[in-house]
């Protein structure tokens, strides 16, 4: 059929190239952010990316059925870990998120992001077709989402809790639950926001209020958003040039190599860099959703679309936060922000989507290639 050997054509070249482009660009930004040095961030990030890419490729060789089989046990394990965090976890910065394993700090809530998607997908794939419009199709999913959500919320970690809920609900939506349920609960939540607001922690309430009006406290809690907007805005169309950013190099932009790395990038590369980055991420999501739509297996397609959306939430929430459209919630930008755990999570998602892609191709191979 083709002169190129099969393993090579099967290898996900295009998506790997895309990831490499995004991560390579991210490494460049970290290099600049350290004042023109590959240490301490750019080198670590590049090494990490290589390791996690290998991990993702290894994941992609695993048949989808294996993921399906181990979904519930994994969910149970992470849930237990979340309870343990609550009992014995380390407190840092007012939140209780970590378990010290001795050799590393484990943040179980991070793993819950992809696993909640797989779990809900698994639940709906097991649900008999006719049950989908019944009450039995709803409450188990809500319990599955609600438990980890509540555990993460009390840590407290509003950003991760939101992402867990959003990932789970997205899969419910994809599973085909009646549309009115989503519209109705959406309206209910909108009405309930003011009540929920009063239950937030002081620092969270403050973040929300300052998000609504960052200039009210430009030197205090609104500082992050103000400085981030200044960095992006002063970049203009073409940016100030590589290594020329002043907001990041003179330390006006806080967290310029982690949560606010996009602002660091935008200052030096301008609108052009921003559009290219957002475009690259959009291509990645398109790939994920197309994988989902190509796939016939119910669990696999819901998982693929759900995991894609999880990665999307990372990007969207981070960018909205950086541009002053969302409160500061501490969601990093995948591949760009310096940090191991978020990259691990995202690469887990990518690896599983690759595995789904690979399985789908295998099943379709005897038939036509289209």
């Amino acid at each position: 059929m083709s002169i190129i050997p099969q393993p090579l054509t099967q290898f996900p070249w295009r998506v790997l190239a895309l990831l490499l482009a995004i991560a390579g660009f991210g490494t460049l930004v970290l290099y600049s952010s350290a004042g023109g040095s590959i240490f301490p961030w750019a080198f670590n990030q590049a090494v990490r990316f290589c390791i996690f890419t290998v991990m993702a490729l290894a994941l992609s060789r695993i048949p989808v059925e294996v993921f399906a089989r181990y979904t519930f046990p994994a969910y149970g394990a992470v849930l237990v870990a979340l309870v343990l965090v609550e009992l014995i976890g380390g407190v840092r910065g007012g939140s209780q998120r970590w378990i010290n394993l001795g050799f590393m700090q484990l943040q179980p809530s991070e793993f819950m992001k992809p696993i909640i998607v797989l779990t809900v997908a698994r639940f709906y794939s097991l649900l008999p077709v006719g049950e989908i419009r019944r009450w039995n199709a709803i409450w188990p999913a809500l319990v599955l989402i609600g438990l980890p959500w509540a555990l993460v919320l009390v840590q407290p970690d509003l950003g991760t809790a939101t992402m867990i809920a959003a990932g789970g609900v997205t899969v419910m939506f994809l599973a085909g639950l009646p549309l009115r349920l989503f519209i109705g609960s959406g309206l209910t939540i909108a009405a309930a926001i003011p009540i929920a607001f009063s239950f937030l922690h002081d620092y969270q309430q403050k973040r929300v209020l300052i998000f609504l009006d960052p200039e009210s406290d430009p030197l205090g809690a609104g500082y992050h958003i103000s400085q981030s907007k200044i960095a992006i805005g002063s970049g203009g169309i073409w940016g100030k040039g590589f290594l020329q950013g002043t907001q990041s190099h003179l330390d006006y932009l806080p967290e310029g190599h982690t949560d606010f790395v996009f602002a660091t990038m935008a200052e030096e590369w301008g609108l052009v860099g921003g559009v290219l980055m957002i475009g690259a991420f959009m291509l990645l999501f398109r790939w994920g959703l197309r994988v989902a739509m190509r796939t016939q297996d119910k669990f696999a397609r819901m998982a693929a679309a759900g995991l894609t959306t999880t990665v999307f939430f990372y990007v969207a929430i981070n960018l909205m936060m950086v541009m002053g459209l969302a409160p500061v919630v501490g969601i990093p930008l995948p591949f760009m922000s310096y940090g191991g755990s978020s990259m691990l999570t995202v690469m887990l998602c990518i690896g599983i989507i690759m595995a789904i892609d690979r399985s789908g191709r295998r099943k379709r191979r005897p038939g036509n290639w289209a």
Partner: protein
Amino acid sequence: MKFPSKRKIVTEATQSFTFTRRAMVVGGIQGAIGAMLVGRMAWISVAENEKYSALSESNRVNLTLIPPRRGWILDRNGKALANNRTDFRVDLIPQRMVDADGTIRHLAQLLSLESDEVDRIRDELEKSAGFRPVQVADKLTYDQFAAVSVRLPDLPGVAPSQGFSRYYPAGATVGHLLGYVGPATAEDYQERKDPLLITPGFKVGKDGLEKAFDRHLTGKPGAKRVEVTARGKIVRELTTRPDTPGRSIKLTIDAGLQEYAGRRLATQSGAVVVLDCANGDVLAMASMPSFDPNSFSDGISHLEWNMLSQDDHVPLRNKTLQGLYPPGSTVKPMVALALLEAGVGPQETISCGGAIRVGNTLFHCHKRRGHGPLNMRGAIAQSCDIYFYQMAQRIGMERIAEMARRVGMGQRFDLPFPSQSYGTVPDPTWKERKYDQKWQVYDTVNATIGQGYMLINPLQMAVMAARLATGRQLMPNFLYGAPRPDPGLVGASEDHLVIIRDAMSAVVNGGGTGGAARMNIPDVLIAGKTGTAQVRRITMAERAGGVRGNSSLAFKLRDHALFQGFAPFDKPRYAVGCIIEHGGHLIRNEDAPMIASDTLSYLFDPTRAMEKLVTLEKGWGGTPGERQERQMAAFRMADAIRKGEVPPPPAANASNAANAAEGNAASPAPDNGSDAADAP
């Protein structure tokens, strides 16, 4: 769909179809949010680019103002009365200090500051609004400056800098004339919001001409742009724009004469004003004792301030403009001019018997035994009170008051000084308005000898002398070459003026009361008029027991001594007014006539005038600067004793120590050439 559905029937196929449709919805939402993010970013970085670029720039660049050098103040010959000296200084930025007490202690030790200086710094720190720097010390040597600079890491909030400070070469003698400079107050800053005002080292004019011409003398600040990190660390200097120094001003003052006049006032509390008879230019205007504007401009210590404000010689008041004194007999030439105008003949004679009765009061002449018969010339020369009591009653107060105003009494001049007292020329309407009382004959009698309600300041007295000398209504002026209209005439005929000038010459040169003012310059004769102003009422008991001599009175009760005059008497070039507060005519060479005369003689023969002054100063304990330093040392010692820091010396008590430096003012000397008006 082919399924007949009362209730929607879901199959694998429809579920798959639903999934595809919903996945596309999810993809669409993702795309929409992506597009929104791009739009938002474009809005921030393109539409609002200008705003955020400016904000980024103001983050990055820190603008430090360089205080402009102040314009010089020059005398009429271009000699500097006030200039700038390069100096090293150290300031404190209260906001940035961590351990205020420790820092001050460390600095005091490094710079060997006096304890009263340390008190001042503590005081100013407390009052400071946080952003305003507090001066620790200036005029430091390079070594001191370096010693502080190398210890900066241990001294947060300490700001050493190199800049310029105001310097007044003539020191105290120009204190009241020029004023001084100092840091702007918090109120100034609240009002003008000019960041220059809170820049370390920037000073504004606080008094005198420095204040009046502040805007003119202030230049444009320079600026240093530096790139700083968020933590305030300086990364690099970008550009430096040098300051534009302020414009200088040229005064009519003669620097040499001004200093001479100040020094010649000796240990007295007094004032001398010298005017140019050609155009009214003020050549000298000295008020002594005075503060030293150099030490005021550096930030004065509590102790020095206390010393100055407690001094009975009122060094903090500008006597030339704010001091008001009864003019005493110095008004007699003016009254005589009014008499001539009213038709009194110069040869008309009055016989002085030592006293006359007005109403039911007996008015005495200063010479108890009486002068005998006197014409106008003799009455002025001998300063006979009886002559003027009688003649004034003949013409009435209105005409005298009118002449007084024409020669400048009670007149407010347009001068570049913040405050000016302009005295009173009393007349019946004035008394009616002010006291709602009818004018009495004894009021006229009092006024003709410059007592009662009549008040004058030393500048006005010099103006009166200049107007009597020239017959023109000269206006005092401080700006060299300032355009002004030709002065109007006093309105007296030249014949009358010649009579007055001749009589005033007789005061000094013709055996009159002002013999002490005789000048030792060939072909130059000085004309003038002495005066004595009482500051106390003489009680009936005192009168009965004999009026006490000034030397036995407390300082505050002694008479003021006055002198006004001009030289040369026949072709007047310079006019002078001099007042010695509570001088009491006790010391001949520190009395008004001789001070005024010596000061004028400087204009004709500076070398000899200076020689005389240097000799005299030896007897007074040195120059005003030296005397003040000694007074300060004594005061500091007294203060330390009072606080119990130092045991009192066995011989002298604290107050004696403080007074010792006052010089020999208390030693009485016979007074020959004085006149004493004896009025009730």
